[in-house]
């Protein structure tokens, strides 16, 4: 046995495992324990300091049957994800397509559009709160110049979520970079061949660029979907008092969960919430992975 040589395939898979080792080690050392603990805790009335009694599925039952705020928060989150993911994806593709042109000063434009992605966190939220100020903010001022009477943005429950989506659109620079890199990698010969065949720029874009960047689109959709469900800070900061107002329109799932855990010390309940969210995101990601082969094109893939 000792002298038996490894096949290339085996060797490759072992190297693969070595490469993902840091994650596996980190996962088992730091994440797996808390994960299982929160699963167990979700069946208790755990309050962090003094109480942890088994209550069966009571937490889940209350959440699904009785808790109006749970439904509100889930609805708010789904609304946000349903609009922000497609819009930011389209926005990023659109901008990177523009920035993929050969015009003078393109580097300056690329830098400008990427800049918002460099800024992050609370500073940006405060900045946007000023921009979206109904009476004095820049956004409504600009809209006023073209004769539009701007909405009340963060003060009107119908406009709060669109406000956040607008803010997200402004910072698509991060994913734009991925698209741009992948567009630059598309072989010039494909375009040349298409041009000889008389394909218009638009058809080239639809039939060459888009298919060639589908792996990046797929990656972007999956990660921003997961990220979208985790929205928290924006609501915590931008709803003024951190309660998700006005009229609960910014009460996102994680904000409500945080309130239950750290304001009301109902940690068991919050853990149950986190598992429901986990299941939702997990199922959506599985669907994504299942659908992927139908539209994602990998170059050099073995069919």
């Amino acid at each position: 046995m000792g002298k038996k040589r490894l096949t290339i395939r085996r060797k490759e898979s072992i190297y693969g495992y070595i490469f993902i080792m840091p994650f596996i080690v980190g996962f088992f050392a730091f994440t797996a324990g808390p994960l299982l603990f929160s699963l167990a805790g979700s069946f208790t009335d755990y309050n962090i300091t003094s109480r942890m009694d088994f209550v069966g599925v009571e937490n889940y039952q209350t959440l699904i049957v009785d808790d109006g705020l749970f439904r509100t928060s889930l609805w708010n989150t789904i609304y946000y994800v349903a609009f922000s993911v497609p819009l930011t994806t389209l926005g990023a593709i659109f901008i990177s397509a523009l920035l993929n042109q050969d015009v003078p000063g393109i580097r300056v434009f690329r830098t400008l559009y990427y800049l918002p992605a460099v800024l992050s966190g609370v500073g940006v939220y405060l900045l946007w709160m000023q921009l979206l100020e109904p009476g004095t903010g820049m956004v409504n001022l600009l809209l006023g110049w073209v004769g539009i009477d701007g909405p009340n943005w963060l003060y009107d429950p119908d406009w709060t979520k669109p406000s956040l989506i607008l803010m997200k659109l402004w910072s698509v620079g991060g994913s734009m970079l991925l698209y741009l890199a992948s567009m630059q990698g598309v072989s010039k010969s494909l375009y040349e061949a298409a041009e000889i065949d008389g394909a218009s720029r638009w058809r080239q874009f639809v039939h060459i660029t888009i298919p060639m960047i589908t792996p990046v689109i797929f990656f972007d959709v999956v990660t921003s979907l997961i990220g979208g469900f985790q929205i928290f800070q924006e609501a915590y900061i931008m709803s003024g008092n951190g309660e998700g107002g006005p009229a609960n329109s910014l009460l996102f799932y994680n904000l409500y969960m945080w309130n239950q855990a750290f304001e009301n010390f109902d940690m068991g309940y919050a853990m149950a919430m986190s598992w429901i969210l986990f299941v939702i995101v997990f199922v959506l990601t599985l669907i994504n992975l299942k659908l992927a082969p139908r539209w994602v094109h990998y170059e050099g893939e073995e069919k």
Partner: protein
Amino acid sequence: MKKLRMPLLVLTSTTLMLSACAGFQTNNSSEEETNEEGKTVVDFWSFWGSELRRPVIDKIVADFNASQDEIEVKHTYSPWGDIWTKELAAIAAGNPPDVVINDINATAIRGKENQAMNLSEFMDDSFSEKFYPELWNATLYEGDSYGIPFNTDTRVLFYNTDAFEEAGLDPEDPPSTWAELEEYAAKLDVKNGDDYDRLGFYPLWGVGYDVWLLNANGENYFGEDNNVDNVNINTETNAEVLNWLKSWRDRIGEDVVNSYQAQIDSQQGNPFFSGDLAMLVQQPTFYTQISEYAEDLNFGVAPLPEYEPGNGHTSWGGGFVAEIPEGSSDPEAAWAFIEYLTGAEAQEYWAVQNFDNVANIEAAEAAAENDELSEEGQMVYQMAVESMENTLLTPAPVEAPGFYNYINPHVDEFFLGSMTAEEALAQAQADVEDLIQKNQ
């Protein structure tokens, strides 16, 4: 195969061992912590890290350390957003700090959940008399105190005396009822087309609708003893108050309200400083902003007007307590520090240096006469001390944690016009009753 397996195994086990070392490097909480000089170390956490507050609290800590040679207090600053979740994690891990500054309104809940220690054993019966009774009562759970009040606040009416004179009003006679408030505001208004050159007053700047409800009722939603057996949200008075508040918005106009609000939010652009707003409800500490941004402003300060004559100038406040987390390594030493921290000397120093309301009555009254304050400062502080007599807190009953999360959204709907006051209050009442039932 073997060749590869060994290094992998070594790698994995080393990583796990290293992570385990970090994970279990906690102190045994029952052991007293002492420093090299043999003094007991008291770990003290606060969120006072600003340029203004940090030196003051550090000086108090240094004074305490110098005043005796048994205990050494170590002050750690932790930002506002982190401190209490960090504390909670530390309590759960069995290695908490010894003294933490925490929100007074949740003290009873923290006592119930065994996060904070029962402090009754450390004090005699007269200890509670040092503090405002309303503050003291907020720290009690089943009759025992779980945190000692440190600082507090209240809401008072600031008014521009020059504007009063211009409008023919007596600056010595500020409005004392809601009716007078409306009358004065109308006289102080200076209209310019749809806009205002000067606005008299708007009730929802500086405070929320709930302060006006509290003022009208003279008690919070759960009655004087904060008992959840009767929930008084859906009442005629409350509906009337909400409609009254909304009438201001309707009269002044949405746009004016929003644009003034934006200026108020920007702090130094506050229209009260420029004289564009004649009256404003604020905390007494607002005086520090006036003296910084509008030194020359002539202003007066009055108690919150009362709903009807004789109804009482009820105001609203909050505050912070010093508590000993459950599992502290040396509660005796921690208590010694808390006693100093909430004692008259430290409290007066804090009050004067920070221009902040303190919980210790003797210290608050002394601060109002302290020569380090300017004449105006003394006037505002004196009003703050007087207002404390009528100031109520609204701690969440243990059966209704976060109850305002169930009221605010409906009241928002009312102000946005999608519900009547009665509908909003009826729904809020039903939601809060549900919450109480869930927690009983």
